[in-house]
């Protein structure tokens, strides 16, 4: 009924056109399914929860060149100044800013060095008892630092003996879930885990352990330093505008740079992923449009080539719907061929990408989804010219020359 | 100037062999005006295509001005066509998006003639067919007879010694047909050799020499004289 056989015969006679269409559909399917998968992968990455109220936090970098003040004391005063500003919830000095792509990490030992033992990699932050509140994270277990546990010093020999860790780190170090109260070592220095935070990310979202974070109650004021500030919701922009001048007024032999919000910091760190995402989206949209236009154009051409033949068919009693169906079936046949090749190519290409680049393995539902979308798209591209073909008058068959 | 000996043309398809020409013998002398008639499917057009080197032949020998056409490359045949032969078709075959001037110019360009010389020739040829004032018109702005006259001007522009006309009046009414025929006769008087395929017995009679092709062979003229008039024009024309 669907006249598949005569259609196939007709296709065999105009092989090249059909093959070209098939190639286009195949490559389109291969590219789109892989690109869609990469997009999905990056979306998940970019939209992940960091554990911080990013929209309320900002940070400042300060470089002090004056040598006429005691740095530790100066920063204590700065922190007090910041915490008393209207709109500020809390502020803390730190060696690094989470999510910024810049910071420190180390292997935390379960045994004191140089004894051999397992190491667990973690990004670490130095901060006082205001750090948790400043970052806006909540303790899941244990307690915050007591103020007398915070070591404020310029003497590298003096170190604290407690730490607060992220739950991911605690679980990796103590898989039984009993990390609270246990010891861990940085070099030969022991630290007791006194608190566990449910979720917080380290300085690098692309670290192989992005969720492993350790906070030490330690302030070793240095000439190059970061200050993290959390504000009341909606107050951040106002606070950011004036903060530099207020700190400079307190002491001016220093330079403040990089007054930057946490979300902007994260955006900059992830800019290349956003770029990839956008490029791939443009690529997919344009590619699908081009393929659709190609099918559209070719069908138009085929129809004008077959005007007389279509007229003859109409004269012989074909209905308009028969003509439309003819083109739809023809297109579906080509498209199915293209999709079979395209899906295979997509899977092969996915394997290549997996091998060559650090991309995850292509999931099959993306291939299937793309195939369905491409089929629908080709049908849409055909239906308009096919309807036009159906309008051809049967009289063209009898008109000579 | 044209000698065909034992020329055969076989069209081979999957199922059947069709002999379009078989052992075809013909000699055309310089300055002749020959009308070729014959029933539909007899091989008239095949003969003309082979004579014009538009189609290769299967066997036999074809000499054009003492040159054996069979031994020529495609490029040599194209050059020869360009220099010696002018075509006039039933369907005029003007190139639709070139104006009259440019249509006539086509063969001259392929011959590599300089622009000034081309201009001179084109203008004189268009003048000769009476369309000198319409050089800038496009073919679809002209009547059928005018279009055919342009096609003749195009054929003449290359100053061919040999004109091949395939049903030149087939698409024209009788008045226009007569005008075209008169033009051809004039060209023949000016020295060109003309072979014209037609199935209009009246036109054929005006030519000094008539031959008839039946089943791919030159047939005895006297025997078939009566038949030609009954040939179905519609079928051949389509």
């Amino acid at each position: 009924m669907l006249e598949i056989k005569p259609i196939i015969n007709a296709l065999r006679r105009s092989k090249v056109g059909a093959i070209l269409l098939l190639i286009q559909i195949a490559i389109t399917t291969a590219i789109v399914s892989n690109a869609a998968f990469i997009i999905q992968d990056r979306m998940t990455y970019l939209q992940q929860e960091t554990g911080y109220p990013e929209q309320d936090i900002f940070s400042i970098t300060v470089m002090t060149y004056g040598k006429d003040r005691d740095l530790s004391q100066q920063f204590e005063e700065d922190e007090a100044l910041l915490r008393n500003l209207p709109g500020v919830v809390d502020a803390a000095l730190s060696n690094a800013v989470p999510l910024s792509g810049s910071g420190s990490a180390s292997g935390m030992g379960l045994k004191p060095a140089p004894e051999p033992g397992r190491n667990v990699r973690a990004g670490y932050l130095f901060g006082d008892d205001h750090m948790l509140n400043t970052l806006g994270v909540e303790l899941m277990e244990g307690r915050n630092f007591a103020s007398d546990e915070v070591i404020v010093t310029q003497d590298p020999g003096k170190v604290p003996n407690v730490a607060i860790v992220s739950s991911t780190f605690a679980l990796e170090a103590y898989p039984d879930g009993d990390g609270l109260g246990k010891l861990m070592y940085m070099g030969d220095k022991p630290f007791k885990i006194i608190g566990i935070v449910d979720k917080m990310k380290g300085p690098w979202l692309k670290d192989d352990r992005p969720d492993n974070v350790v906070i030490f109650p330690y302030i070793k004021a240095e000439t190059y330093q970061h200050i993290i500030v959390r504000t009341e919701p909606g107050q951040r922009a106002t606070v950011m505008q004036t903060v530099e001048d207020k700190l400079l007024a307190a002491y001016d032999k220093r330079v403040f740079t990089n007054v930057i919000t946490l979300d902007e910091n994260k955006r900059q760190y992830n800019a290349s992923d956003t770029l990839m995402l956008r490029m791939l989206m443009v690529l997919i949209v344009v590619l699908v449009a081009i393929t659709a236009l190609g099918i559209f154009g070719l069908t138009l051409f085929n129809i004008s080539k077959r005007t007389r033949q279509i007229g003859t068919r109409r004269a012989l009693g074909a209905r308009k719907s028969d003509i439309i169906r003819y083109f739809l079936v023809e297109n579906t046949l080509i498209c199915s061929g293209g999709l079979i090749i395209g899906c295979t190519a997509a899977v092969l290409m996915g394997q290549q990408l997996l091998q060559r680049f650090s991309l995850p393995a292509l999931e099959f539902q993306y291939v299937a989804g793309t195939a369905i979308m491409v089929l629908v798209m080709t049908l849409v591209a055909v239906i308009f010219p096919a309807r036009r073909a159906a309008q051809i008058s049967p009289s063209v068959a009898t008109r000579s020359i | 100037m044209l000698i065909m000996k034992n020329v055969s043309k076989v069209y081979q398809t999957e199922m059947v062999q069709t002999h379009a020409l078989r052992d075809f013998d013909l000699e055309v002398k310089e300055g002749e005006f020959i009308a070729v008639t014959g029933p539909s499917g007899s091989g008239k057009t095949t003969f003309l295509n082979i004579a014009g080197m538009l189609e290769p032949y299967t066997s036999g020998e074809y000499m054009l001005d003492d040159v054996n056409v069979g031994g020529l490359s495609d490029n040599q045949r194209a050059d020869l066509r360009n220099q010696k032969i002018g075509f006039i078709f039933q369907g005029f075959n003007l190139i639709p998006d070139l104006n009259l001037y440019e249509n006539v110019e086509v063969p001259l360009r392929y011959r590599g003639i300089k622009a000034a010389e081309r201009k001179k020739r084109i203008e004189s040829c268009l003048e000769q067919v009476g369309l000198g004032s319409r050089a800038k018109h496009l073919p679809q702005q002209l009547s059928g007879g005018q279009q055919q006259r342009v096609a003749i001007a195009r054929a003449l522009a290359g100053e061919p010694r040999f004109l091949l006309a395939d049903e030149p009046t087939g698409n024209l009414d009788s008045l226009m047909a007569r005008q075209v025929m008169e033009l051809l006769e004039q060209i023949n008087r000016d020295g060109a050799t003309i072979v014209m395929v037609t199935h209009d017995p009246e036109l054929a009679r005006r030519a000094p020499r008539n031959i008839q092709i039946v089943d791919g062979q030159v047939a005895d003229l006297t025997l078939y004289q009566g038949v030609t008039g009954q040939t179905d024009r519609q079928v051949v024309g389509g």
Partner: protein
Amino acid sequence: MFLHYIDLGWRSLRRTPLVSFLMVLAIALGIGITMTSLSVYHMMSMDPIEHKSSRLFHPQLQTMDDGEDTWSEDNLPYQLTYQDAKNLAEAPFPQYKAAMLRTGFTVHLDNSEIRPFIQNTRVTHSDFFTLFDLSFIYGSAWTQEQADAASPVAVISEELNQKLFGGENSVGRQIYLDDTSFRIVGVIAPWETHMKFYDVNNGAFNSQESIYIPFSLIAAMDINTWGNSNGWKFQNIRSMKDKRQSEIFWLQFWVQLEDEAAVSQYGDYLMSYMAEQQKFGRFNREQLEYGLRDVNAWLDYRNVVSEDNEVLVALSFMFLAVCLANILGLLLAKFMRRAPEVGVRRALGASKRQVFLQHIIEVSMLGLIGGLMGIGIAQLGLWGVRLTQEYYSPLATMDLTMLLSAPVIAISACVIAGLYPAWLVCRTTPATYLKTQ
């Protein structure tokens, strides 16, 4: 004849405006997308110092004990320890060599005219300027004596000189780096490359430092790096002095080796250096190992071209292939429809070659128009790239090579797509189309 073909091609494109538009659009988009990713790739993978990239080498030493791992693909550390960098820099061979690290200072003139600002600074040997062919606008590099005495002297960039001194000859003037007064001895012309190829640790495409000071100041002023420090061994580091004596990797090192003989001679030297260091209890290894890569091998090894970009380039070329298949189909249909006209031309004496040429020129014009439009689309794309990723700003531009390649790629692509249809149309038997209409 060529001009005539162009005229014919133009008429033919105008005769089917919709199809021509589709084809030009396809090629323009294909080229636009391809050029966007290719331009970034081109800038990323460009040889930053073409005339001597094969003579500049970055040595690596395997200082780690057996069984220790680092991140690199061949397990060699990317950077050197301070002691190795210093020792190698003080070795008699080769002639030009420089150890270096990136740090930073607050720059000011100790007056209120210019508000203090932070500036990246490179601490290095004076050979640095010779190695990387930097030319001086004013003054010169510091002398050996100044280096030996750890004098506070500095070479600054032309840009910084503009900012601080309005571009005038500032040799002999003072600037403050933090609270130390430095005397300017030279001003260098801008670098000719957008790539910080000599130190790719914290972004290979950041701009170069604006201040250069002698290597000996690292010890004299206890300068720490602003770049990466990587350790593998537990050592108690309590001071900068500890760090300088530690096994931490934090310095870069470049040498100039003129020929293969020099390269192998230097390799031998590195082996003997490591063997000698073993006497001090370092290099606890069965097998001594070093790396010696030239600039391009080094950039390749450090994966300076981002993977994402490579994926994009590959995908864009596939995209271009789709556009070509698209054009091929349309050309085929278009040319075959014109077969009767070609039949007439053939009958009038056109050779196959002439017909072929006519059609190839027509598709080349298609390529040219598409290519030029593609440049426009690529500019739009690159603008989007710069907007999304500021770090790529110096990369997301088309240099002359790329501007020229766009139409060349477009035309070649179109010609490739046009070959088959043009061949098909020129080999049709003319007779077939003359009788019927």
